[in-house]
C-alpha cells in the first residue's frame, strides 16, 4: 500500500458519513485557509512595527549624514558612510577585535559549559547544590557582573592582582584593564564566566536525553570513554551544541554593557567591538549616519552567521539521512 492510499483509507474510516438530508453546515471561519495568517498577524504586525520599521530607518540613516544634535536635518550621502568606515584602519581593528571576541566567547562558553555539564552529569554527593551554584553567574545581571569583575581586577584592592602577585604572574602596576595586552583577555574571561552556566545547564539537559542503553552497548562493545562520547553522546547533543553556538555568536556580536562598563573600548581601542564603536559614533561623535552604517555591518554579519548555521544544519541533516 502506498502512503497516499493508506492516508485515504484512514480518512475514509475516521470521517463520519454526511447525511444526505441534513442542512449544509456553515463553514466555521476558523476553518478557512486564512486562519493561520489571522493567528500570525499580531506577531507579524508587532515584528514589522518594532523590528522592521527601525531596521528600515537604520538602513536609510546609514546613507545619510545625520547629527544627533539635529536629526531632522540630514543629507543623503549615498555610500559615503560605508566608504568612510571601510577605509578606516581603526574600523578594521574593530572588526578583528569583534571576531576574536565572538570566536573566543563561543568556543570558551560552549566548551566550558560542556565540560561542566559532563561533570555535573556524573553522580556525586551534593550534586544538586553544585548545580544550583553553577547557575549563579547567569542569574546575575550583566551590570553586576561587570562591576564585580572591575572590583576584582582593581589594581589597588582587587583580589586578582593579589593572587597573581602571590604566584609571581603579576602585571606591572596591576592595571590589567588598562593594559592593551591584558584588557581583552580579562573581558573574555569575564564574559565566559557569565555565559558558561547557561550553556552548561542546557547541555546538561541534553546529556540526560542520551539513551543509557546505547552508551552501555558501546561500553560492552569495548569502546573507551572517548569513543563512547564521540559515537553516542556527541551525536545526541550535537544539535543542542549547534543551537547554543549560534545563540552565543549572536549575543557576542551584540554584547555591550560588559565591555562598556569595564573598559569603554580602551585602552587605545584594544577592546573596541562593533557595538562599542557604534555607541561611540552615535553618542560621542554624534554621527548617527556613521553609527547606522556600523550597525548595518553588524546586521549583515549576524545574517551571514544565521544563514551559515542553517546551511551547516541542512548539510548535517542530509548526512544523517544517508
Amino acid at each position: 500500500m502506498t502512503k497516499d492510499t493508506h492516508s485515504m483509507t484512514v480518512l475514509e474510516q475516521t470521517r463520519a458519513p454526511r447525511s444526505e438530508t441534513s442542512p449544509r453546515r456553515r463553514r466555521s471561519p476558523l476553518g478557512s485557509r486564512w486562519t493561520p495568517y489571522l493567528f500570525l498577524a499580531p506577531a507579524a504586525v508587532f515584528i514589522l512595527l518594532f523590528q522592521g520599521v527601525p531596521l528600515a530607518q537604520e538602513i536609510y540613516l546609514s546613507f545619510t549624514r545625520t547629527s544627533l544634535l539635529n536629526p531632522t536635518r540630514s543629507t543623503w550621502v549615498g555610500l559615503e558612510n560605508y566608504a568612510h568606515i571601510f577605509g578606516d584602519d581603526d574600523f578594521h581593528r574593530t572588526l578583528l577585535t569583534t571576531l576574536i571576541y565572538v570566536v573566543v566567547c563561543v568556543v570558551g562558553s560552549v566548551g566550558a559549559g560542556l565540560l561542566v555539564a559532563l561533570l555535573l552529569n556524573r553522580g556525586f554527593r551534593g550534586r544538586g547544590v553544585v548545580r544550583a551554584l553553577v547557575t549563579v553567574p547567569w542569574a546575575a545581571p550583566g551590570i553586576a557582573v561587570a562591576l564585580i569583575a572591575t572590583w576584582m581586577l582593581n589594581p589597588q584592592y582587587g583580589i586578582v592582582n593579589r593572587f597573581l602577585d602571590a604566584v609571581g604572574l603579576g602585571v606591572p602596576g596591576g592595571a590589567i584593564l588598562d593594559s592593551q595586552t591584558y584588557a581583552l583577555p580579562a573581558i573574555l574571561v569575564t564574559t565566559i564566566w557569565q555565559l558558561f552556566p547557561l550553556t552548561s545547564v542546557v547541555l546538561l539537559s541534553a546529556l540526560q536525553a542520551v539513551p543509557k542503553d546505547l552508551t552501555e552497548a558501546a561500553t560492552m562493545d569495548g569502546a573507551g570513554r572517548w569513543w563512547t562520547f564521540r559515537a553516542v553522546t556527541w551525536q545526541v547533543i550535537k544539535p543542542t551544541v549547534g543551537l547554543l553556538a549560534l545563540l552565543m555568536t549572536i549575543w557576542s556580536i551584540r554584547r555591550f554593557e560588559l565591555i562598556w562598563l569595564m573598559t569603554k573600548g580602551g585602552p587605545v581601542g584594544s577592546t573596541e567591538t562593533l557595538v562599542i564603536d557604534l555607541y561611540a559614533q552615535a553618542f560621542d561623535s554624534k554621527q548617527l549616519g556613521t553609527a547606522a552604517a556600523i550597525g548595518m555591518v553588524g546586521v549583515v554579519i549576524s545574517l551571514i552567521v544565521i544563514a551559515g548555521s542553517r546551511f551547516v544544519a541542512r548539510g548535517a541533516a542530509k548526512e544523517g539521512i544517508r
Partner: protein
Amino acid sequence: MRKPRVRRATVAAATVVGLVAVVSAGCGSDDSGSGSASDGGGVTTLTFAASTFGDPGRGPQLEEWLEQFNASQDEIRVEAASVPYPTFGQTVLTQMGGGEGPDLVRFDMPEFEAASDAGLIAPLDDLIDAGEYELLEQPDRFMVHDDVRHGIIFEASNYAMFYNADLIPEPPTTYEDFFAIAQSLTSGDTFGLAFRQTEAEEAGVWQDIFNYVYGFGGAWSDGEDLTINAPENLEGLQAYKDLYDANVIPRGADAATFRRMFAEGKVAMELNNGGYATHLLAESPDLNFSVAPIPFPERSQGAILAPIVINEASEAKEEAATFITWALEPENQTSLQEILGASSVATATERTPESLQELPFLPTFDELTESSLPQVVLGFEAQTPDIRKIVVQNVIAALQGQVDLQTALDDAQEQATELVG
C-alpha cells in the same frame, strides 16, 4: 425579545479602531516639546537639569536654593532634574536634539559648545539684560559666540593643587619640587600624587592634562589652527608622562578610588577644581588638607566653566529667564556662592568670614580666575569632544609605551586636523 446580532467582524473592527484611537491619544498627549508644564492654575513648572543635583555634598543645598526661588514666585516653579555626570551630556543633548529636554540646563563647556553650535540653546540677549550685572569678565567671555549670548556662568571652578598638610608642611613651588615630593612620599600603598590616566575616564584625563599643557605654556590651538604637537605641549605632557613613569601615582585607579585614597591620607597631592573642596570637606571633615597654585612654570590652568542655558525647545523661555534673573540678584549669588564653596559664580561676590574660616584657601582659588581657561579647544569648541578622543587615545598610547610622546602628538595632530578639515 430577540437580541440584535452583532457580527464578529464589526466587533473586531471597532476594537481595532478603539485601540488605535487610544494609542494615538496617548502618543499625542505630550507634545509640549520641553520639560515645562502648566498645572492649569497658572503655575508654570520648569525643569532644571544639572549633574550637581546628585552631588551628595551640594545637591540637597542646591535644591533648597531652588526652593527659595519657588517661595518667591506665584506663577513659576523650578524643579530639579538630576542626571549623573558621566551620561549628562549624552542624555540631555539627545533630548534637546529631538526637540525635547529640560527648560534650563547647567552644561559643562564641551556640551555647551556642541549645543550652541547646533542651535539648541536659546539666545539670551532679548531675555536677560546682562549689562545690568557685574559679571566676572574672564569666564563670562566664553558665554558669548559671535556677539550672541548663549549662557550665564552658573559655576566657575579653577584648578589648583590639593595637598595633605600632614604629609606636606610646605607645598612645592616648582615642577622639580613637585616631582621630588611626589617621589619621596611614594612608598608601599601610599602615593605622592594621583591623576586620571585611563581611557575609561576620557573626559577626566582631558581635564587633567589641560593643566600640564597650560602650565608649560602650551595650548591645543592658536584659535585658527590646531597646535596639538607644539613643543610646549610636548614639554607639558612629557612632565605628565614622567610622573606616570616614575610610578608615583596609583596606576589604573579611577578618580573615585584615588579621591578616597586622598581622603584616607594614602595620596599626598592631586590637581583638582574648586568644586572638589566642598565635596572633600563634606566627606572627610577630619582631613587636614590645603590648596596652593599648581607649581608649573606658567601660572595658567584649566577651569570647569558651567553655564546655565535655556533650551531653544522650551515653551517657557521667559519664565526660564525669570529664574536666571533671580539667580543673578546679589543676595542669591551670595547664597549660591556659599553652596558652591571654592567655585566662583557669575558675579563677583564677597566671601563671608564664616566661609573663610571654614575654607581658608578660598582666596587662592579666587586669585586664579584671571589665569584660568576653559577645557575646550579654542576656535574648535564644538569639535572638542572629537578632538579630546583623539588626543587622549594617543597620549595613553604614549603612556603605555606603544609609541614615543612626540609621535603620539604628531599622530593626534594629523588625525584631528583631518577631522576638523
